[in-house]
């Protein structure tokens, strides 16, 4: 470590640190502004700030369509979370446990959907679902969201499985547990933090997704689609109020997931005795 210290220049180090701060300011400026202006009374948001008020929250709360959108979002998010986590778990376990012909294709199928632009997914989903008479309903949003959320669940749970001692599963079989019993008594308990992590993350992804939902939701608009509607109409600080509200929900989910994923992760077997 000594050589590194000698070779370091304080000026360069501090310039780089200042640069980090600048980058974070750029990333967080819109998030912070949205929060600040949601509490600002002015009709047209700018500086200098007007007085602090909850008017925009009241306006949002008084809009029955927003409540309906929120209801849709929560219901859809919950179902999407559960289904994606189950599918993702299955795929992660398949990748962990089995070797088979065509596994690369299977993994590609499991992981690729989020890399396809949402606008194209939205169009494809709309065209396909309306053909099979499933478009314009809450179920169409659920179906589409699971497609893009399951890969996240799979990645999170696969990561956890890779931390598992490969002998753990055969050890359970060897002690008299059938494959099903091992799944229930060993694999699930071991991956439990990741399962809940995946559940919350996929719910959060579904909460914020608007493009596909906009294409396929019809009258069952989710909250983000509502925001899109506000954006298309006149500029309205109501967006800030909804945005802050959704942000709080999402962050709660993410922080819970983070705590589950890191806090209770089992200690690694790195004993040197």
């Amino acid at each position, binding site marked *: 470590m000594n050589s590194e210290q000698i070779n370091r220049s304080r000026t360069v180090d501090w310039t780089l640190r200042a640069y980090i701060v600048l980058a974070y300011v750029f990333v967080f400026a819109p998030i912070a502004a949205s929060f600040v202006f949601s509490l600002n009374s002015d009709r047209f948001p700018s500086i200098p700030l007007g007085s602090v008020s909850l008017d925009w929250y009241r306006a949002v709360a008084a809009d029955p369509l927003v409540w309906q959108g929120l209801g849709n979002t929560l219901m859809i998010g919950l179902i999407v979370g559960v289904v994606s986590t189950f599918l993702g778990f299955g795929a992660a376990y398949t990748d962990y446990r089995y070797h088979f012909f065509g596994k690369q294709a299977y993994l590609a199928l499991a992981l690729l959907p989020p890399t396809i632009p949402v606008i194209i997914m939205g169009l494809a989903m709309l065209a396909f679902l309306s053909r099979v008479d499933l478009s314009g309903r809450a179920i169409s949003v659920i179906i589409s969201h699971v497609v893009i959320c399951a890969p996240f669940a799979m990645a999170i749970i696969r990561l956890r499985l890779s931390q598992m*001692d490969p*002998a*753990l599963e*055969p*050890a*359970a*079989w*060897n*002690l*008299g*547990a*059938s*494959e099903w*019993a091992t799944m229930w*008594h*060993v694999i699930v*308990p*071991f991956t*439990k933090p990741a399962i809940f992590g995946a559940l919350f993350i996929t719910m959060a992804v579904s909460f914020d997704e608007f493009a596909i939902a906009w294409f396929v939701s019809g009258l069952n608009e989710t909250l983000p689609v509502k925001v899109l509607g506000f954006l298309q109409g006149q500029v309205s600080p109501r967006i800030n109020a909804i945005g802050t509200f959704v942000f709080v929900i999402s962050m709660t989910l993410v922080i819970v997931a983070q705590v589950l994923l890191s806090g209770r992760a*089992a*200690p690694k*077997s790195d*004993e040197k*005795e």
Partner: protein
Amino acid sequence: MQRDTLVSIEGVIKRFGSFTAVRKMDFEIRKGEFLAIMGSSGCGKTTTLRMLAGLEAPTEGVIRLSGKPINHLPTWQRDTPMVWQSLALFPFLNVRENVEFALKMRGVGKAERRRRAEQWLDRMQILEFSERNIAQLSGGQRQRVALARSLVVEPEILLLDEPLSALDAALKVRMQSVLKNLQRETGITFVYVTHSQSEAFSMADRVVIMSRGVIEQIGTPQEIYGAPRTRFVADFLGSSNIFTGKVLAASDSGVQLETADGPIVLKGARLAQPPRQGATATLTVLDTKTHLSMTPPPDATNVLPVRVIGEEFVGATATIYLETPRGQEIRVQKGHEDLVGLPLDIGETLYAHWAPTDSHLVAEA
């Protein structure tokens, strides 16, 4: 003392795709013995153990447990518990729950489970840790949990896959005696896979030496040490000097060999199949029975002029590395007092010699 056969392995072959891990294996495991299977990595020893456990199925051949074929019985329907190299303790269960696991899977009731688990924890002297997490235990304590977890079902056989390899040297020796005593007291058959000669030879009643999927020799440690059956075993054990040459004369009590460094003689043996004259044969002599002197001893037969090329001191013994004029390497192991007065600097010339009765004929060169 001939004991009953517990496991018999008959013509077992195991292939993984085009790779053959075990070729045509036949041997028996006796009831109540401590059997070590030894070999370097990739020799098929772990595959053999996994077939016994039911984690792999033999490609060909039959494995019988107490006379019944068990080839295709999945591991969870056998009572062949295994202690894993990584121990594979369940990190999300505490010590007692780990030990109870096998009982729970067998449908044993809660109270009974607890009683039997605590009995074994007590026996392994870790009862006080029963509510602890695995992560809070030391390496030796984990070892005991793993043993208790496997033994709680009171099996006829226990399989152990290099369970001591993660421990430091001192703890290793202590756990060796724990294992040996446990085996003696319970009378459970232990099958112990290891690459360590010292572990195998200090604990086992019989040792199986494997190489490239084939059994090279089965026998007691003394038998194998004193009379390696193949050249591979002699090389693997590394405790003998090995000479290969042409047979000048042979009878059922002795062999005379012509090597590049001169004649080597074996006398006083009882050979079932003496080699034919003119054939190639291999003689070995233990490095502890090879002696050194400054002048050739007057009446000795096996005498070779050698040059010192190195020496190594471990505790009370010294190992001298030497070389004949033809480049044959010779090792001599002696206590320090046996070497007093000998010039051991590199390049010095000495004479290595041993009694013809200390020579041993390797059956397969």
